[in-house]
């Protein structure tokens, strides 16, 4: 296993200690709970707080979006594992500013169950109101008639951004929840993997893939995808990512934002090579692109591959997307 680490069992706590040492001006623990990372100035009284959470190994997802204009806190699991009920509850308590808390989490069994149990706890024990929105944007994971079963991938970042902007406007919980739901109703993702990653505590690749192979639709934890094929060209790959999205949501003639995301090892150069073809394909459908995000936004450690996320825009979503936001991992200043 080629990794820079000490004891694999300490991968996550040491990572979190490093994070807190690096950004004490912007992040802190949720009380005593190391596995709860919240804004340094949390809670913000009167503001709806938004938290997410899930397994580690996806930086900047999840905790990288804790910051002004986005999330208030994040419950952190071990690599590819859910945070526990107690960790989620500690996070909720640390961010609650009296206006309610929104759980904005990926549609993964463990996370869904543990966040629900934590919501019960803080409801009963602290009278904190919690609403939940599940991210289920990966079109590869279920057909459109079972869209609620889909898993959540990079699309969650658009939900963080949109709901976060609404919360920053001091809107009530129902509005923040509705904004997240609207963002997600307009969002679809699709990924491709070329190479596996290694969970530190396991020490072996999560899946096997031939030197000349790729898998379209693979999940970010190595969940089996739609099709294993020979490695295709960049132009073919981006088409294979775009087409299932276009079949799932009508974008023709509209305006979108998009995220072309490396799963980790795939270099930015290759994202731009794909982007070149992508704008061509979109232009042919009269789809215009606002504020493309091209980079590493949701990774699987050193996995090789990429994902495409598209969010259909209206004036409202566009304004909220453009609002400033800032975290140690995501800085969208007034300039851009």
């Amino acid at each position, binding site marked *: 296993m080629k990794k820079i680490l000490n004891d694999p069992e300490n991968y996550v706590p040491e990572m979190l200690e490093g994070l807190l040492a690096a950004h004490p001006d912007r992040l802190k623990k949720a009380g005593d709970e190391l596995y709860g990372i919240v804004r340094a100035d949390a809670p913000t009284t009167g503001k709806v707080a938004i938290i997410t959470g899930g397994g580690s190994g996806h930086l900047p997802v999840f905790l990288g979006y804790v910051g002004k204009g986005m999330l208030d806190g994040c419950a952190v699991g071990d690599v590819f594992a859910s945070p526990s009920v107690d960790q989620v509850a500690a996070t909720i308590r640390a961010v609650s500013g009296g206006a309610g808390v929104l759980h904005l989490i990926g549609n993964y069994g463990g996370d869904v169950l543990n966040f629900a149990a934590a919501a019960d706890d803080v409801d009963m024990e602290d009278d904190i109101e919690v609403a939940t929105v599940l991210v289920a944007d990966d079109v590869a994971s279920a057909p459109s008639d079972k869209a609620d*079963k889909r898993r959540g991938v990079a699309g969650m970042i658009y939900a963080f951004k949109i709901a976060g902007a609404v919360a920053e406007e001091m809107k009530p919980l129902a509005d923040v929840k509705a904004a997240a739901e609207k963002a997600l109703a307009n969002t679809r993702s699709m990924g491709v993997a070329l190479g596996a990653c290694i969970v530190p505590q396991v020490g072996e690749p999560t899946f096997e893939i031939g030197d000349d192979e790729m898998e379209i639709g693979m999940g970010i934890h190595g969940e089996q995808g739609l099709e294993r094929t020979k490695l295709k060209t960049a132009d073919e790959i981006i088409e294979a990512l775009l087409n299932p999205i276009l079949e799932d949501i009508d974008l023709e003639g509209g305006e979108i934002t998009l995220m072309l995301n490396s799963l980790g090892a795939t270099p930015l150069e290759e994202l731009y090579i794909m982007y070149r073809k992508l704008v061509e394909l979109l232009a042919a459908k009269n789809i215009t692109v606002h504020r493309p995000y091209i980079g590493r936004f949701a990774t699987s450690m050193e996995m090789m591959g990429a994902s495409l996320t598209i969010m259909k825009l209206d004036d409202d979503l566009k304004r909220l997307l453009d609002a400033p936001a800032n975290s140690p991992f995501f800085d969208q200043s007034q300039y851009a």
Partner: protein
Amino acid sequence: MATTMNTQQVVELITAVAERMIADKDELQKLDAELGDGDLGRTVSRGFTAIKEDIAATDDPGGDVDKFIYKQGKTFSNGAPSSFGALFGTVLMTGGKSLRGKEEISLLDIADATQAALNALMERGGAKIGDKTMLDAMHPAIAAMRKAVEDDASMGAFFRAAADAAQQGAEDTKDMQSQIGRASWQQQRSAGKMDPGARAIAMMLDAAANHTQEG
């Protein structure tokens, strides 16, 4: 032979199950790698290790049997926070709650507690029988438990019957298509593979049968 258990006996039973699950975690790991993300072995070993540690750390690991079982549910799910961890935690917590006030538990109590847990799982997790989950091992196990109670079976026979039924239920999941959780993303491709959570339930009951038959 006794057909009731006091807290101390429950502690011993759970400890025996824990040993077995930690020892055989690789089998679950492999099944979950096929159908899910390959962490179920780690989940059960972490969850049961947490329970063992909790038992070891408590001076009198007994106390009220309902509270003990409830607490081990919390311990399991916090120690192994995956789907199965949360769900099996719910099994123990609900089971514990359904035994409220009992000093000793009977075989019927166990059947009823398992039924209560099953109901809670369906509510929490949204799965139905036949969705290819741990429910499909628990459901036939409960029927077998009830039949064993009717037949005045010994505790060993009770758990053996439940274990066999659960194992058959786990085998039957091979013919099902996953409708929930990670495995559902495999859609048609999930057919032919055994559900790892169902197998975990069967394995626990088998360990319980071995333990109580020895006694």
